[in-house]
């Protein structure tokens, strides 16, 4: 998702850039927003700010560029996010670091400060989330910490805009923190050796870099080959092996321990907890939402609210308003009138306002039917993200996901897939192993209906007995788990175990959710609208050239014979190759026209739900997983979807089910 809405950066300001660095979920993005007043993604789920966001901080002296680095717990990265943060630090050697920390987790904050100091970075330290710390009885002596570290320490509660005014005032006082870690003598000697090999222009950063190299940071590989002289990499490896022999533990562990010792010493001076955890309402909610028993009703309540908001309000009320009102009464009549007046040729008029017209079909469909559904879903997803519910959901479903070779972390792309599979396929990057990324990509493509499709499917299912919804849901869920289970066992490679930070439950900020929804919706329209137009053009050409009936005849044995559907259903499958919600909409029209009975509807919807989501999703699959893997998935999914449909049709007919 490209969200770098940088203001005009052509004239690069004279003052050095400001780099926001901090642990995940500490309100970094809120502070970025306050400094720049431009859009930024703020989210609770680790991994949602992989994109780097830049802006111009007009409120700071010299209006420097501000860069929001992904949250990181260490400068020796354990994930893509952390690597991006570390790379940013190395790429911007002159930037002033604005370190944002969660006051109550000062230990982890200072652990990062120690590493910034070793890189010789000038910094400020913002102790954010003072309100949460106060609730827990945590008190940090900011002035004493400032005296000891020698850098400005600024207590703040960013969500209430408290304390942030000190940032511009104190920016010029940024300094390298004095937080020295005493490493074992053998480590110090190795550091001197390695630092001596590094180019002199790296200056004070050499010590930190030497420590990173000795920690065995493989992600530095390419950088190290460039920065180190001939044979340097070999020397680092020898020193590592020597340290391991001398210390009995890995160098990385010894270095981490020394840092923790130094931090613990400082904590004793400035960090006080006055009373035990009070147990606020938010804490109780947080506990209930991942309780083995109460977590289930909480999940049911969330699903119910989601259905009411996206399904009933978005897909019902809003769609009626926009489709019948705006498009039915205003835009389409106006466009038709305009076309009649300006365009003399009937076929060209049809291209815009005919049954397969760009305005009357593509735009109407994209903006009137899909946009309200997707928009409300993005609002919901933003609330779930910022409230801290998603990681708790991951805790709930971890065991279920284990059966599919995944872990709870995969719940984020899967839920996001209910909004938009294309976007979800992009977020599979947060999963640690290739096997997991491939599995989730496959499952998303196979059976996670996006909100656009879900809206149409639910509307159609709503017109028949509840058993229809149950059968459809059972077939899709069963297929997902079955394929996931089998694929996890057939596919080589390994999954990962589950280690996830669960942020506190927080009340989402409305403005934050709105800007986020706007950015996501904008991205969605940019992605989807051209495809709607393309799909409509394809149908238009097939229709004008008289190809449609021939294709229908060709597919008849499959569609009519095996699936037991009318021949016109072929159209829906054809466009289903472009977007499966488009295909579902085709069935919707057939159903409304009385051409599909209950069983046929359920069969048709099951097949179209198991289709590849859309061309955009296919492109992203190719981009993320490679051409061969993506094609293998499609080659599996399409025949498989029809096979499941044929089987379902046969079973329902054999059992004489009427819906």
């Amino acid at each position, binding site marked *: 998702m490209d969200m770098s809405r940088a203001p005009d950066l052509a004239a690069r300001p004279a003052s050095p850039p400001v780099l926001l660095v901090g642990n995940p979920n500490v309100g970094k993005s809120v502070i970025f927003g306050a400094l720049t007043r431009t859009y930024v993604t703020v989210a609770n789920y680790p991994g949602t700010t992989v994109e780097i966001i830049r802006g111009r901080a007009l409120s700071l002296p010299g209006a420097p560029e501000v860069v929001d680095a992904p949250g990181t717990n260490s400068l020796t990265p*354990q994930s893509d996010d952390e690597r991006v943060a570390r790379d940013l630090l190395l790429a911007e050697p002159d930037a002033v670091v604005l370190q944002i920390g969660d006051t109550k987790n000062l230990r982890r904050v200072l*652990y990062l400060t120690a590493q910034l100091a070793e890189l010789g970075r000038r910094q400020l330290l913002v102790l954010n989330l003072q309100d949460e710390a106060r609730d827990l009885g945590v008190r940090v002596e900011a002035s004493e910490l400032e005296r000891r570290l020698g850098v400005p320490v600024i207590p703040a509660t960013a969500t209430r805009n408290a304390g942030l005014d000190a940032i511009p005032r104190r920016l010029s006082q940024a300094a390298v923190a004095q937080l020295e870690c005493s490493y074992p003598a053998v480590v110090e000697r190795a550091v001197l050796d390695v630092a001596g090999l590094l180019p002199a222009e790296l200056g004070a950063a050499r010590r930190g870099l030497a420590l990173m190299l000795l920690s065995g940071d493989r992600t530095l590989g390419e950088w190290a080959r460039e920065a180190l002289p001939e044979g340097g990499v070999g020397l680092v490896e020898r020193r590592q092996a020597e340290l391991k022999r001398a210390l009995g533990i890995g160098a990385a562990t010894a270095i981490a321990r020394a840092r923790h010792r130094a931090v613990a010493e400082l904590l004793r001076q400035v960090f006080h907890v006055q009373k035990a955890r009070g147990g606020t309402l938010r804490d109780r909610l947080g506990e209930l939402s991942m309780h083995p028993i109460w977590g289930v009703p909480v999940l049911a309540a969330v699903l119910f609210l989601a259905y009411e908001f996206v399904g009933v309000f978005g897909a019902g009320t809003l769609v009626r308003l926009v489709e019948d009102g705006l498009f039915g009464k205003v835009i389409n009549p106006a466009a038709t009138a305009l076309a009649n007046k300006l365009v003399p040729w009937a076929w060209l008029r049809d291209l815009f306002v005919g049954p397969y017209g760009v305005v009357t079909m593509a735009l109407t469909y994209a903006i009137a039917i899909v946009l309200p559904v997707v928009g409300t879903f993005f609002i919901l997803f933003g609330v779930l993200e910022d409230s801290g519910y998603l990681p708790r959901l991951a805790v709930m479903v*971890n065991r279920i996901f284990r059966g599919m070779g995944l872990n709870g972390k995969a719940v984020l792309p899967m839920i996001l897939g209910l909004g938009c599979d294309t976007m979800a396929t992009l977020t599979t990057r947060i999963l640690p192993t290739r096997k997991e990324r491939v599995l989730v990509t496959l499952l998303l493509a196979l059976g996670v209906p996006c909100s656009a499709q879900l809206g149409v499917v639910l509307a159609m299912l709503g017109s028949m007995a509840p058993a229809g919804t149950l059968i459809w849901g059972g077939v899709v869920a069963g297929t997902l788990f079955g394929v996931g289970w089998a694929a996890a066992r057939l596919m080589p490679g390994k999954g990962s*175990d589950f*280690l996830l930070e669960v942020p506190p439950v927080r009340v989402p900020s409305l403005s934050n959710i709105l800007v986020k929804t706007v950015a996501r919706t904008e991205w969605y329209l940019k992605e989807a609208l051209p495809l709607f137009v393309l799909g409509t053009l394809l149908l238009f050409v097939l229709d004008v050239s008289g190809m449609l009936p021939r294709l229908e005849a060709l597919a008849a044995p499959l569609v009519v014979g095996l699936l037991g559907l009318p021949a016109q259903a072929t159209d829906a499958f054809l466009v289903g190759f472009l977007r499966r919600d488009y295909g579902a909409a085709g069935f919707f029209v057939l159903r409304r026209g009385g051409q599909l009975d209950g069983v046929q509807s359920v069969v048709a919807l099951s097949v179209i739900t198991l289709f590849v989501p859309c061309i955009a999703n296919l492109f992203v699959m190719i981009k993320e997983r490679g051409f061969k893997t993506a094609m293998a998935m499609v080659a599996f999914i399409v025949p498989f979807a029809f096979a499941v449909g044929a089987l379902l049709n046969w079973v329902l007919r054999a059992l004489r089910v009427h819906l």
Partner: protein
Amino acid sequence: MSEAGFLESRSPGAAREEVLEELWTAHEGGTRLTVEALAQTIHAGPGEGWGQVAQELVERGLVRLADGELVLTQTGEREAREVVRRHRLAEVLFHEVLDLPMDDSEAEACRLEHVLTPGATAAVCSFLGHPPLCPHGRPIPPGDCCSALSRRVSSLICRLADLVPGEKGRVVLVAPHHRERLDQLADLGVIPGAVLTLRQRKPSLVVEVDHTLLALEDEIAQGIYLRPLVET
């Protein structure tokens, strides 16, 4: 260590302990051994000299002969039990905590079983959380330290996964299956000395370290050893 010539390389005391251990294991499996069978099957390495060792044990009153079969006396059984206990505890230490391959763990345990003092054995047992079974699934004979603690329920050292929700512990050892986890856990504050509170075990294990909540796979929690703390 079959062809290593155990009898030549080790002290007579260690050889006697090997025989006691062998007899205990055989008894556990429901079989009795003659001197010939012992000399042929002993895991420390079959050989001629074992008959001599068995003879010594009989002279010391640790073993008696019944119908040509070797049987542990009461004193012999007490000693055998301690050897087996040391051997199996050492296996747990090397295999489960230090992650050595089974063969190596076995070999190390064979050496350690002859040198551990009673005090050190109790310390190892407490460190391991008084494990009931060895990695092969055979029972570890409990020592005094185990029964003393079973009355107080809690043990000196246990795994994070063994805590009851709400209980706290101070981390003494982090030994995850995958090396990278060690650094990742350290970055999140899970290091020796840190105090962890187990919040819940199901549907997934959640712990609190400082003021951070972490959800962990059970396998990771199996590799975190801590000393339970009593709430004051």
